[in-house]
């Protein structure tokens, strides 16, 4: 099966800078110093060089041993807990582990390359296909088996078997039905539309601190706040749709795209969830009034109804109708009139529906 022929030169192609004269001798010194009898293609190493290499390999293995021992010692010596201690432990463990692995690898490589003989063996390939007789035999056997089983003859059995299998094939998918609730219309609403327990409209509170916002206190034009619904400050599910950007404008800065009925004293609230794929659009450039989503650079003009001025988002950030309660705090007057966040199949042309309703 394995035929081995001799190839005196290295079969490996050496890189060589063009322009230098080729040596007459082969590039790899394959001079069989002590050619073994009867093993063609296996070229032994120079024993003097091999002895030198042996010492190097032994040294590398010794380093592996010491590094390995050092790894175990580091585990005992260096405790973790603080950032500094973790860093030291990481350095000691990782450093010794890497040293152990690399010196062992280097040792083995030197062993193979400088002590073990070089090889230039040849093995025959054989075509992958089976011979014709075998193919014929397999085909015949297969047909014979099909015949014996009656799968071909009994049409009724064959068809009802396929029929029987179909629902079972779907079973794994059916089993997954309990994974999640059905979407229903939940993507269309946010918690801004729900009144609080005592029936009052929901206040806007500052993200992080949970402070309600008195309209009179938010009086610096160009100001921006990240805002969440009162009572849902920690609810990630609610925040994923209901987070707002609150902006303060001078009245003359607001353009026609913004619904002025939904602002209060130049304060405008937009959904913070980008209409592209839902990242929070968190960057704001005061001078241009541009809101930028850092994920994919969709840019919205906050002064003009947050319409898209650049990037892959196809729809403006929905505006939330806001007003103040009797204590002067900002509240949501109702839910968004269109679904917030990324587009989905059932969304339809929600903006057009709103326009139709209004007219």
């Amino acid at each position: 099966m394995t035929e081995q022929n001799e190839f005196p030169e290295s079969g490996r192609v050496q890189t060589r800078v063009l322009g230098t004269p080729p040596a007459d001798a082969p590039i790899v010194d394959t001079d069989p110093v002590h050619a073994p009898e009867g093993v063609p293609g296996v070229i032994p190493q120079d024993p003097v060089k091999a002895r030198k290499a042996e010492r190097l390999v032994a040294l590398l293995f010794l380093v592996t041993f010491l590094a390995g021992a050092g790894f175990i010692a580091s585990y005992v010596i260096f405790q973790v807990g603080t950032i500094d201690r973790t860093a030291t432990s990481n350095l000691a463990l990782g450093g010794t582990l890497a040293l152990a692995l690399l010196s062992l690898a280097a040792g083995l490589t030197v062993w193979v390359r400088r002590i073990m003989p070089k090889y230039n063996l040849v093995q025959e390939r054989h075509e992958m296909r089976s011979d014709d007789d075998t193919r014929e035999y397999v085909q015949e056997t297969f047909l014979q088996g099909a015949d014996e089983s009656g799968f071909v003859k009994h049409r009724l059995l064959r068809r009802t078997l396929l029929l029987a299998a179909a629902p079972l094939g779907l079973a794994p998918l059916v089993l997954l039905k309990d994974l999640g609730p059905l979407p229903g219309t939940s993507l269309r609403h946010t918690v801004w539309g729900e009144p609080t327990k005592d029936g009052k409209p929901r206040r806007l509170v500052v993200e992080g601190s949970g402070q309600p916002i008195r309209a009179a206190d938010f009086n610096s034009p160009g100001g921006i706040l990240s805002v969440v619904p009162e009572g849902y400050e920690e609810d990630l599910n609610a925040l994923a749709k209901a987070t707002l950007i609150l902006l303060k404008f001078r009245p003359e800065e607001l353009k026609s795209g913004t619904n002025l009925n939904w602002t209060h004293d130049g304060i405008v609230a937009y959904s913070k969830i980008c209409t592209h794929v839902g990242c929070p659009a968190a960057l704001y450039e005061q001078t241009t009034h541009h809101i930028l989503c850092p994920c994919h650079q969709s840019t919205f003009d906050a002064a003009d109804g947050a319409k898209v001025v650049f990037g892959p988002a196809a729809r403006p950030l929905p505006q939330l109708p806001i007003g103040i309660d009797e204590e002067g705090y900002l509240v949501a007057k109702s839910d968004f009139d269109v679904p917030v966040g990324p587009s989905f199949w059932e969304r339809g042309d929600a903006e057009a529906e709103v326009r139709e309703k209004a007219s």
Partner: protein
Amino acid sequence: MNAPPKAITGVSTFVDDRIGAGNFLKRNLRKIFPDHWSFLLGEIALYSFIILLLTGTFLTFWFKPGMAETTYTGNYAPLYGVKMSEAYASALHISFDIRGGLLMRQIHHWAALLFVAGMTVHMLRVFFTGAYRKPRELNWIIGILLLSLALLEGLTGYSLPDDLLSGAGLRITEGVMLAIPIVGTYLQFFLFGGEYPGHDVISRFYSIHILLIPGILLALVTAHMILMWVQKHTQMPGKGRTEKNVVGAPFYPAFMIKAGAFFLFTFGVIALLGTFAQINPIWLFGPYTPADISAGSQPDWYMGFLEGALRLMPAWEINFLGHTVTFSVLIPALVPLGIVMTGLALYPFLEQWVTGDRREHHVADRPRNNPHRTAIGISGMTFYGILWLLGANDEISANFHISLYTTTWFGRVAIFVGPAIAYWITYRMCIGLQRKDAEVLSHGVESGVIKRMPNGQYIEIHTPPAEDIAEHIRGKKEIPVLESAEDGEGIPPKSARSALGRLRAKLSEAYGTDHVPLTDGHHEEGHEGEHAGVGAGDRKELH
């Protein structure tokens, strides 16, 4: 040779009596493996995968894949008392309270990056050398499956720690799922257990990440190896290497030890990276909340091209019979991946269709010797590369002071123009390199030795190339072309008469025609005398 020691004969007899392993070993122990540096690329991927399995198992001992809210009371002071998910808290616990935990986390992450990188570069090697050709098409397809699954595995793993950065990736995943027509919302609700982010997605990703995909990966990797073993490795052209043989070193002991050492090298380098190159410092990002994000959020490198595609795409959304179809998400999320993966999977069969070549191939091509294939490959790499680069356009913009929108516009143009330019340049380069080869064969190489002629003229001596180089060049194979579309009487065969048949004939002609035969050495008249070949006497002067 001495008689083998009893300990070995005893065990081997015991095993062989029961499973007859001797027959298998007789055939395989001295299996020949050819040598070329590029054959190591796949091994890097394989060894990274093994490291992933090892470190991943370590991490599962402490990781808690839950989204239940907990208050962090661990050792990392800056986050003490902060509310977060169990997943994030346990990832911090692994990082700061488990000895070696941080190291294993970082090695795991680095190995994941290297796993995909190794697979990608290995795949490019196989592509450019034509090693996917018959009989290896099946293994090529398994490779594409492996790569696709690895991307999915990376995405699920990246999301598990539930930090601010991984959450941003998850949010984008959600947006992409929602954009899928008809079933998108249902898919999203079923995967996340309700509205985003829900409470189930981390634990579901965990099952997928540590059980389902690794299981399939392991099975496919095994199949990949078995096929490689059975079909034997390809080899680069060279002296004594034919389609019917394999030239190289035997599996036992040389290749085995080399491979073992290379595993240790790979592990060692990844351990170095894990030690010295900090990666994914989740404690700096903080727990995930859908309301926050940091500028410069980037996915791991292998997802960069999808991120770039999302960034490049202009806004485009239509209303279709009362339903929203958002092409600005659908196209970038599905089309580039579809083009790359489908194109790769189909390529061996398309090439076969165009060339009509149904022979077995075991000697690899040098990329220059199949200029159209190489140009197609580089063109594809350019397509991928531009998307990948644009996945970091905010970083490019910030670091090189280029306007952000300019980078996007550059990408929108370059994604169409770039691959075409790359195709043309690559094709020309291949032809140029082939000419150089032909010249080296017929004309020799410049020796750097100046000779003075009797008439006082100085010439540079050219010497014939070294034998191994010459053999390597002579390994060039003609690319087959479909049999002439016309028979002797000018009537094309039936199959070539349809529009498709004519297209196929034209493609075949363009793909296969050899513009630079090896005999084409540009021997102008008198050129020989100008440089003077090397005579027997000149040789001596050289040494």
